[in-house]
């Protein structure tokens, strides 16, 4: 018997007759878990949420919540009977009610239910929307509307909460604070949540699991750490934009050889036979700066990213390699200068394809 709290089995997610994401399967084991779905714009992330909410039908596979089928080819429980809440990315507040009434409408569903309810004032305070309670949706900013919409969804305390890019319109300076507060509320009230976002850092912070959707498929569904450090396909690497793939040859169970970098040691996450020609993933933090090293490459670009610089180095075979250097590092290199790489090169997780 299946004990998962929520489960999707072999579902094709469609808009009209067009399949957006095919053959998706994943599950949420425990009530209160948060998972995030990551992917580029237009890939079908929102379609997945709308289908789970019951706003779109499926004709293959099944969607189950607490062991009960919500959607399948034959069953389609109406959205109003699912106790699933979806906070839309765009402003979906009722335009003729003020923000307070909009949020309080969310409490109607749980009237009479013996459930520890989210305190309205506390929620307003956490999301910092007390100053807009008496305003109408057209009088507030997109970020405020998004937070109000989030409050309305949260206060319903649904069995499953679906958030579509919940913080995409929130100011960058305020985003981290809201993320922390959101995580706290979701955890405190054990609200099982699926968040769709294109911001990988948001997904890694909020989700206990992350799904990467690319080319009509759920490519990887794993812990954020694994998605980040142990991507399972070239597509995921390219999507997360976490480095480059360089040609290498496996020389032992713990080493490889690259024409530019020489010997690289570490632990393979997947074994390859000795002598295999592979593509090795080099992430910016894998290589370390060392002016004393005799392995030197030419600097062709330097980007200032606050705490770090990202140097782009050109090897003799014209491969471009990114390297992180702490921005307080004393010796800064200019374009066209030589940049030393510390030897021996050791990478904790060797990712090859």
């Amino acid at each position, binding site marked *: 018997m299946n004990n998962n709290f929520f489960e999707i089995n072999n579902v094709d997610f469609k808009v009209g007759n067009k399949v957006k994401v095919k053959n998706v399967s994943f599950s949420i084991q425990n009530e209160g878990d948060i998972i995030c779905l990551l992917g580029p714009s237009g890939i079908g992330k929102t379609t997945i949420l709308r289908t789970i909410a*019951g706003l779109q039908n499926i004709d293959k596979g099944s969607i189950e919540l607490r062991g009960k089928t919500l959607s399948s080819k034959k069953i389609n429980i*109406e959205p*109003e009977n699912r106790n699933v809440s979806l906070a*839309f990315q765009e*402003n*979906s*507040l*009722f*335009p003729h009610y003020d923000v307070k009434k909009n949020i309080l409408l969310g409490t109607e569903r749980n009237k009479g239910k013996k459930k520890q309810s989210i305190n309205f004032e506390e929620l307003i305070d956490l999301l910092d929307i007390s100053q807009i309670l008496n305003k109408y949706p057209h009088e507030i900013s997109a970020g405020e509307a998004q937070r109000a919409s989030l409050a*309305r969804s949260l206060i319903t305390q649904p069995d499953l909460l679906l958030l579509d890019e919940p913080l995409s319109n929130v100011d960058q300076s305020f985003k981290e604070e809201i993320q922390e507060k959101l995580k706290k509320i979701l955890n405190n009230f054990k609200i099982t949540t699926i968040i769709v976002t294109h911001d990988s850092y948001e997904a890694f912070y909020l989700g206990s699991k992350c799904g990467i959707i690319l080319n009509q498929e759920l490519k990887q569904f794993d812990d954020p750490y694994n998605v980040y450090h142990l991507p399972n396909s070239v597509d995921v690497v390219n999507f997360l934009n976490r480095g480059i793939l360089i040609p290498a040859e496996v020389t032992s169970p713990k080493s490889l050889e690259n024409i530019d970098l020489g010997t690289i040691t570490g632990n393979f996450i997947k074994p390859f036979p000795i002598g295999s020609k592979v593509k090795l993933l080099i992430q910016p933090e894998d290589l370390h700066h060392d002016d004393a090293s005799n392995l030197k490459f030419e600097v062709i670009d330097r980007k200032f990213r606050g705490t770090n610089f990202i140097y782009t180095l050109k090897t003799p075979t014209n491969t471009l390699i990114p390297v992180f250097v702490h921005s307080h590092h004393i010796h800064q290199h200019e374009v066209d200068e030589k940049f030393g790489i510390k030897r021996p090169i050791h990478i904790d997780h060797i990712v090859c394809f």
Partner: protein
Amino acid sequence: MKLNTWFFLSFLISSIVLIPIITVFSSFFENTSNYYEILKNTFLIEYIVNSFILLTSVLIFTFLIGTCAAYLVSFYKFPGSDFFKWALILSFAVPPYIYAYSLTAFFENYGTAFTILKNLFGNGDYNKNIPKFDGMFGAILSISFSLYAYVYILARASFLYQSQNLIDLGKNLGFSKFKSFYKIILPAARPAIVAGLSLVAMETLAEFGAVDFFSINTLTTGIYNSWIYFDDLAFANRISFFLLMFIFSLFILENLSRRKAKYHFNSKGGFKQKEKRKLFGFEAFLAFIFCFLIFFISFLFPLTQMMYWTIKFPENLFDLQISNLVLNTLYLVILSSLILIIFSLISNYGNRVSKNKTLNFLSTLSISGYAIPGVILAIAFITFIAWFDNSIIKLLGFASIKKIFIGSIFGLVLVYFVRFYSLAFNGIKSGYEKMNISVDESAYLLGYSKRKTFMNIHIPFLRNSLLFIIILISLEIIRELPITLILRPFNFETFATTAYISASEDLLEAAAVPSLFLILIASLFIMITSKYILREKYE
């Protein structure tokens, strides 16, 4: 209510509205009498030529008056500009036929103009020097001054929503004010102006009261006459078909330009509220005089003429059973508005939730009722009921149903329903367009059923739109003449029919009292709605 119930209801409503339209089309293939052959070679050409002259002249007049007035009040501040902004739509309260009565009453031999001159300068032969505004020219003036507000309202809305950026662009390019107007401002407002002119065109072709009063033979009066005087329903339907084809082409044109206009209004990005320029001295005086003249000629003139006659011949006031007329008018207005609002709401909601293409197409067709002149609708309705009664009811052995539908309030309201369905349907539709579909979905996800979403979310949201639509429908019904004239029960009169009957009996003085009441009630309705019609906030 399940989704397919909404679909079914919506489908049914649209189909009912389509019946008279289909009747007119099907009648084209029926046999006509010999009278048709005679008329085809004689009057038909005259009908078409007259309709064409009338239409072209009215379009030119309304374009000039409506656009210039809208330009002045949208871009400039001058003495009275805030007043004229809404006062210029009061002309809607004066239907063309009442304008025609006023025009005749004032300029006719020994009319009001004569009396004024006599009082000012003593006895004299003034009649030969007073111009006569009758015949075709009278009809053109009457219709133009009554209908220019369509162009004015839409052009003004378009001018108002033109961003300051657009006007600044003209300045940047070194354009003069005049060049900016015809190179930038006017082309940007073109869809709105064309939409306004299309409405004017439809109303002009449908106009019955004024052209009948001036004895101009147009396609519309031709339809009425061939039915009333020659009892030739088939020929009436045949002319209706020609007129309908003509109107449909205008309707398509209007629809196309409205689509563009909608695009224009929605482009909120980069919108910058423009500031009106203040006019001084002679410029301010000219702007004031222009607007005042339009306001005076279109509204004050017919109002004062009707007031003058009411005071001069007070016996007419007492002869008329005012309370009866008010009750009859209110009865029709309330009944029709309620039915129109309820059915249009259901139909719109059915369209919104079912997202069915066939239903959408059917709804689009069904709203063409507004483009069909009242005379045609009324006759098509009678044709359909007669056919239904003779072929279906009789066949089934039931008693005739003609009395239920023809010459009854029920039949009258039913045809009003078809005629004004598009007003209600489109009004609600544009209200719905402001509400994203995700609002409905949010309601479902908060546990609201379709019915509860409709009652608790949609109705409160549409409240203002509904009020506006009710007033618009009321205004139309108060002014409506041909349908009421043809289908009203025996001895059931409204202000419009009473005025028409008196005028057609050459008792213009007697027509003044109902006309005055009609103008006053309609003005009241316009004043209530002006807030919505002329809203300046970007919504």
